[in-house]
């Protein structure tokens, strides 16, 4: 398909600005003005509408395809939340209004949403307080590690490293490192859990925190989690909870009760806000009591008269981590979702997510080697190691699924599982959808034995075939040239 730039015709216009109603001003001195004009498309509104409408049809999406992308919780995104996010009372609200003298009264509705959302998330996770400011999950991680650093600094304790399992998301070590900590990696044992011996060896007085995903990235709940937390606390380290997998445990257990001190959530995962093709997300961070003072400014508070206000007088705060109060429109959608589901709806979401994942595992484990053959939580990890013996890789199976109309599961993650295929069906998919998907997965496993080249050639039904990624990296072409 042509680029929007390639559709450009000199003199064509797509939008009309109002005629100016003010007298012509003195021109800005030449030295401040650009000489080389930006070469932007010249197209009509219909050109634009058709271009992007045709582009969107070249995507798989949750609304069009089953999207069992492990670790990403691609559940259905309810439509009513979209309607709420664009209400003019929210969408047109300037974020600086409540920072003007007396301006707090101009944003009472928005502040109320933020205040209640923070309380709801605290109750769901068992934490003392929440900030909804972080703009994505990884941004929440960074915020969380900054809180940990501020806490240790305040206690004048010298902490140097953060312990992270080898099965973790890449963002965990990256967040720890850019916040100034060394990363100590602990291996996974034969049962898929943190290797306790190696963990005890790594843990010492210099450990600032232990960053864990629970259930872990293998989709398993570690029943020794309390022991891990107690050991960390015994050397003055804090427990960090990566909330990527919270969709498994709503109402079943709470990170705060386990002993986690800092937690981030991904609203675009558990709380059904759309993933937007790669953001915007939202990564609220919750903390236990002893970390509350360090939360970023501003804090939304409720005054005695019931009105809401912004509080900036927090001298121990880590400061500003976002320009304002978070990705407000995303928070609004998640807030509406929680209000609609309510207590029983949230619990049912987790129960059905776990049911669906186990159903996929049970039906597929005779065809693909399970990474760990036991009851899983909201996602299951398989390995295409048997298929590899026939020369078929996880990648080939993924591409075959595309031809059959399914977005592939996450592949090659966690890194510790050979030829990993990580399936997260979520609670919103029907049994029929799961069955068709499973049948196609089984079909692929059989093809691997009988006709592997059929898998190597896939996909055949897409606008393009497999792309030359080496060429893309070796000869970077990252923009259109006029």
């Amino acid at each position: 398909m042509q680029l929007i730039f390639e559709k450009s015709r000199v003199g064509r216009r797509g939008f009309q600005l109002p005629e100016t109603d003010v007298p012509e001003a003195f021109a800005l001195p030449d030295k401040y003005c650009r000489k080389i004009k930006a070469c932007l498309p010249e197209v009509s509104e219909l050109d634009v509408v058709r271009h992007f409408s045709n582009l969107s049809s070249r995507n798989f999406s949750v609304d069009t395809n089953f999207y069992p992308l492990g670790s990403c919780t691609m559940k259905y995104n309810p439509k009513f939340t979209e309607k709420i996010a664009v209400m003019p009372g929210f969408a047109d609200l300037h974020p600086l209004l409540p920072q003007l003298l007396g301006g707090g009264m101009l944003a009472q509705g928005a502040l109320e949403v933020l205040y209640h959302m923070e309380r709801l998330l605290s109750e769901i996770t068992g934490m003392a307080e929440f900030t909804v400011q972080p703009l994505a999950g990884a941004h929440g991680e960074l915020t969380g590690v900054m809180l940990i650093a501020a806490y240790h600094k305040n206690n004048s304790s010298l902490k140097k490293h953060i312990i992270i399992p080898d099965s973790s998301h890449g963002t965990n070590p990256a967040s720890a490192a850019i916040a100034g900590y060394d990363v100590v990696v602990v291996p996974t044992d034969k049962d898929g859990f943190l290797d306790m011996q190696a963990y005890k060896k790594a843990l010492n007085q210099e450990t600032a925190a232990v960053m864990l995903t629970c259930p872990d990235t293998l989709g398993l709940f570690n029943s020794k989690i309390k022991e891990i937390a107690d050991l960390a606390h015994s050397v003055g380290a804090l427990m960090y909870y990566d909330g990527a997998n919270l969709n498994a445990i709503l109402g079943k257990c709470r990170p705060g009760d386990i002993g986690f001190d800092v937690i981030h959530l991904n609203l675009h995962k558990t709380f059904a806000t759309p993933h937007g093709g790669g953001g915007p997300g939202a990564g609220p961070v919750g903390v236990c009591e002893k970390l509350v003072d360090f939360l970023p400014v501003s804090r939304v508070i409720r005054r005695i008269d019931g009105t809401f206000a912004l509080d900036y007088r927090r001298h121990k705060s880590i400061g500003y981590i976002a320009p304002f109060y978070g990705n407000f429109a995303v928070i609004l959608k998640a807030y509406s979702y929680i209000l609609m589901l309510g207590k029983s709806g949230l619990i049912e979401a987790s129960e059905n997510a776990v049911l669906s994942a186990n159903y996929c595992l049970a039906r597929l484990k005779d065809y693909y080697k399970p990474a760990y053959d036991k009851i899983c939580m909201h996602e299951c990890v398989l390995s295409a190691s048997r298929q590899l013996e026939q020369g078929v890789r996880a990648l080939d199976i993924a591409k075959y699924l595309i031809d059959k109309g399914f977005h592939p599961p996450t592949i090659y993650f966690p890194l510790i599982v050979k030829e990993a295929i990580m399936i997260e069906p979520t609670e919103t998919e029907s049994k029929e959808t799961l069955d068709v998907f499973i049948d196609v997965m089984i079909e692929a496993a059989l093809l691997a034995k009988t006709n592997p080249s059929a898998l190597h050639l896939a996909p055949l039904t897409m606008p393009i075939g497999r792309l030359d990624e080496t060429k893309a990296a070796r000869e970077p072409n990252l923009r259109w040239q006029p």
Partner: protein
Amino acid sequence: MNYISHTELEKKEMLKVIGVKGIDDLFKDIPDDLRPKSFNIPDGKSEFEVIEHLKLLARKNATHLTNFVGAGFYDHYIPAAVDALASDPKFYTAYTPYQAECSQGWLQAVYEYQTVICELTGLGVSNASLYDGGTALYEAAMMAVRFTGRKKIIVDSGVNLIYRTMLYAYTSNLSIEFVETPVVHGQSCREDIYKNLDDKTAAVIVQNPNFFGAVDDFSDIVERVHSKGALAIASVYPVSLGMLKSPGEMGFDIATGEGQSLGIPLSFGGPYLGFIAVKKEYIRQMPGRIVGATVDKDGRRGFVLTLQAREQHIRRERATSNICSNEALCALRALIYISLLGKVGLEELARLNYEKAEFAKSVLDKVPGVKVKRSSPTFNEFTLQLSKNADEAVHRMIGKGFACGFPLGRFYKGMDNYLLVAVTEKRTKEEIVNFANSLEAALCS
């Protein structure tokens, strides 16, 4: 409502296949003593009830005020086609395009967005977007630290205080030395920058237009920065780039900014759009996703995520950044917005903003008790010196139906009587005149 379609019968069938008796068996790995101490969440509601509740809350927010507040976040008109196209679920319910063959729509859109950002900034390479203007500036600063191996950064105090504060917060454990240089008569103080610039300096960061609205030609500063082997970083306002000299033309190495003005609603602070563009030689230090063009085995053009060896999912603790997902949907909005306005439209938009602001200056200059700061040319935002405390004036103006500007005393010591006023293309001549009249009354009373 919980959006689950499994019937009771189906659940039983599924449990049977799994080989367990009930749902509770699936949660056996969670020890009893770790069960929730409480889970006091209100009962669910219907769609209608939730919408009514949120409507009530939306009504408690004031959107009736005529807006002259900017301070980095601007009230521009958003064409209907932007909303319509960005509401396409085939865009917004997809995720990061890991599987290129079934994500060509997104990948091509990001490639087009990268081209737009390169064209606007006059620089060679853009990534797929970052969270916001503040985090983009922080990523740029860290790029400079990594590239130069130096740890001192000079920051002009004309850079938005929100961004400076974010920069300091993120780097508080990294022993990076920041030196703030003053703004004198609205412009960056060359003397102070040069005095502090040395061979330990990783970067100099400026903003155009600066927080007071003043525009500048930083070519001279950039040259001096380069002579010391440091990087020059500019935070810019994209709408102004329809008119103002681009960072590339001034020789900057990195340009970042807040893309909210490109078709993204104010939405009480987010989601917004951070953009970053760099000279080609810094490409391996770039944070976040990047899309590249390549071909399939039949030679057909296609797009993929590329240069991923920089990223956290591969490089882990040695990644250039921890960023994973970015602000793709906001980047799409910016791309659609720019496509609609086009080459000529963006120029006209910039000019309209400039002219409206110049008109507002001329009207406000005549108001007793108001002095327009004219030491530097401005784009669509400028500083007023009032005869009274600006906080008070703003408070009174709210009562008259105006969000009349941002009081600079909030961010700058000794500027309690200064007000920052933004005038976008949305403000009519009539609104500007009424604004001046109301301000006169507010200052008199």
